């Protein structure tokens, strides 16, 4: 793989599509982030995407992202300067120049937000992230498992407010930042997890922004070639199809700023006669088929439109849609005891232990 690539405005289309697939139902529609990143690239020039190994060990690397409820982000669009304000304020606070931008979450809207700052600052962007997917809370990153502190962190809103956080743990950062985000109207933009190049090399889930692009290209190519798209995407992800069916009910509620809910499906094709239940807390976290749990976090669950293969977010689930559910393997870092503590089913309130999904597909 080449170590450095240039990303132009048009490339964001594929990255955003792939970001929605890795969003595993949540993370927000990348559409808004894509438009903002494209505007930034048009204004400031293309973004250089670099392999994490190209960073100097003492480089200063800072991830940026958007935090909050996806429905809010699609409705209350950002003012526009929030991310650069957070970036500049953190740089000032750290008292030294930031050398590279990082991505914390390659799934959903945050697959695209780092491009905004990378374009505006002219700094390279690391090809990778801290999740390999989307997760709802900010301590749920591989960075936490490597002892990297989320703070100092700067959180900015659309009105020009900013908050600096210094906390005792990343869990506390999440709690305090979440409260601030709710007060800021349900969505905020931030720069956090300042780390060294050496730390980034250990902690990063590598190549995930390129994976987003590849997933987007695969889907686009499948449409152009008129071939069945879900299978193509599954191949790239090394995923198994665990259900095919039609949505018969969706129940939603918002708890503590998160869109929680359950979708129920009736089987079609080889799953005719079976039922399926998908639980989401922003992301799809647990799948049951005929009352039996088939997959749970941290294994990745994503849902695609049966015919078009386009990813369907938990937000976009609607009565009557025909869908296919895929499960695919998470980054191995999540399977450590610490990883399961951070993002396993018990953390999300399900009274079950994580049982690894047994993949049929052979790893590439």
């Amino acid at each position, binding site marked *: 793989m080449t170590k450095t690539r240039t990303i132009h405005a048009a490339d964001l289309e594929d990255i955003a599509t792939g970001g929605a697939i890795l969003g595993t139902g949540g993370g927000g529609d990348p559409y808004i982030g894509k438009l903002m990143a494209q505007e930034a690239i048009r204004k400031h020039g293309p973004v250089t995407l670099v392999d994490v190994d190209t960073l100097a060990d003492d480089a200063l690397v800072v991830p940026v992202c958007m935090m909050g*409820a996806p429905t809010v982000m*699609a409705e*209350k669009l950002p003012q*526009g300067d929030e991310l650069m304000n957070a970036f500049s304020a953190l740089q000032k606070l750290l008292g030294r120049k930031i050398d590279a931008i990082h991505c914390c979450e390659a799934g959903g809207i945050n697959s695209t937000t780092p491009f905004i700052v990378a374009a505006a600052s002219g700094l390279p962007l690391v090809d990778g992230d801290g999740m390999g997917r989307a997760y709802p809370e900010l301590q749920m990153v591989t960075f936490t498992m490597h002892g990297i502190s989320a703070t100092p962190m700067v959180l900015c809103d*659309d009105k020009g407010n900013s908050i600096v956080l210094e906390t005792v743990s990343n869990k506390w950062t999440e709690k305090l930042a979440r409260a601030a985000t*709710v007060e800021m*109207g349900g969505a905020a933009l931030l720069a956090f997890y300042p780390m060294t190049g050496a730390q980034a090399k250990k902690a990063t889930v590598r190549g995930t922004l390129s994976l987003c692009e590849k997933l987007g290209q695969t889907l686009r190519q499948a449409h152009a070639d008129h071939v069945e798209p879900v299978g193509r995407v599954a191949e790239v992800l090394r995923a198994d199809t665990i259900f095919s069916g039609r949505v018969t009910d969706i129940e*939603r*509620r*918002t708890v503590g700023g998160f869109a929680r809910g359950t979708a129920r499906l009736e089987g079609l094709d080889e799953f005719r006669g079976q039922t399926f239940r998908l639980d989401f807390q922003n992301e799809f976290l647990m799948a049951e088929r005929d009352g039996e749990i088939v997959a749970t976090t941290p294994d990745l669950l994503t849902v695609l439109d049966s015919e078009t293969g386009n990813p369907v977010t938990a937000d976009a689930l609607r009565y009557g849609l025909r869908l296919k559910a895929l499960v695919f393997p998470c980054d191995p870092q999540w399977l450590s005891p610490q990883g399961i503590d951070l993002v396993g089913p018990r953390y999300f309130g399900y009274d079950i232990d994580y049982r690894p999904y047994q993949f049929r597909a052979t790893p590439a």
Partner: protein
Amino acid sequence: MIRIGIDVGGTNTDAVVMDGERVVAGVKSPTTSDVMSGVVNALRAVLDAARMAPEAVNYVMIGTTHFTNAVVQRRDLAPTAAIRLGLPATASLPPMVDWPDDLRDVIGNHWWLAHGGNEFDGREISPLNEDELNGIAAEIRAKGIRTVAISSVFSPVAGEHEKRAGEIIAKALPEADITLSSDIGRIGLLERENAAIMNACLRDLSRHVIEAFRNAIAGVGIKGRFYLTQNDGTLMDAALAEKYPVLTFASGPTNSMRGAAFLSGVKDAIVVDIGGTTSDLGSLQKGFPRQASIAVEVGGVRTNFRMPDVFSVGLGGGSLVVETESGVTVGPRSVGYRITEEALIFGGKILTTSDIAVAEGGVDLGDKTKVAHLKADIVKAARSRMTEILEDSVERSRLSPDPLPVIVVGGGSILVDGPLAGLETIKPDHFAVANAVGAAIAQVSGDTDRVYSLAEMSRDAALADAKAKATEAAIAAGADPASIEIVDVEDVPLAYLPGNATRVRVKAVGNLNG
């Protein structure tokens, strides 16, 4: 009950007279450049064919692609002002940011960001500023713009700012047509705003078109009520259609698929509607078109309407057949509605797909002696290309390997001479006017949109109550109670309001009584 269904397409204006469930007569007549004389001609011809007095007609239902085509072809669109309430938020992406440049240019790219709008929990982002809005109104007046779209952050759950801004602008610009985004769309600011702006830029046109339809109907002596069909296959009365022309988008494919289901009696199928310029393919599930699951673009603009998932391909009865060095090509260029002048069989000079179908001998249309000179290998090559395009499109539209039947409708159906893709292929009676039949049988709907407190009742009870209210509304609108189905249920929790409040929207549809 006597109904007339009319479908105004780019090539033909189709009309049918239906007596209850029976198609009494159907006619096709050319769409005229002024559209309305075509509608009058079609009405006269179909009443004549049905031997029906105009006074006997109870209802006229019109499906028209007029408004979609206006956006797609960028014509007859009024310069439009877009006002968005949300500052300081939302400034990163201004109104029409994701529109194609040419469309944005046609309506002038006039937008203003103003203070106002709400947070997800109902708090104000910033207070509405009357002076600011009056200032914007003055600028709008100075630019000579007469139609305004207003959007406001979270207006579908907190519509006060949008309504109040509408009143302020209306007071300052009494002659302006004003579209509020919360009247036509759901959560998702850009998509809802896009729909509102498109609606606004169509208001001038809709006033003329509705007035012309009204005159055409009255002109032939029909006194019955008149409706337009909307994208979900249900009806809106003329006054509502004039205010919300954008809701007619994609009603054409919906009508043709519903008409195909009605005429064939088949509820699950692939429908191929072959017109003069294109073929539209979609799939029927339980008699209704399958809905697209992703944001649907109209004329290159992203919206969040619920629309049938339709695939269009450039093959129709007027498609050009051209001999090139590398072989025979078919479409996508077409003579369109000029087929009756320009195709060989009608004495013209241009070789079209209809000429090929006539030359093969199975179709009686125009003057077949005019195509007797065509070389057999050209006819064969064109036929094989036509079949290839259609079969490829059918394969694309299949949802499963199950052998679903294919229903072929539309004026260009003469192009189909046998089974497509090895599937049972049905050409129902009146296939050529399936669109108009779909319009005639369009249903009436009832909606509810209410906030329930789930502290006081269970979600199931809230949904049941909303469904009952939507059903009542459909009956009040004239639906036959036995035919009512719930077609859409959506519940959106309103976070951080006391008592776990949730907004429930339900749509019920049924057949028009009588």
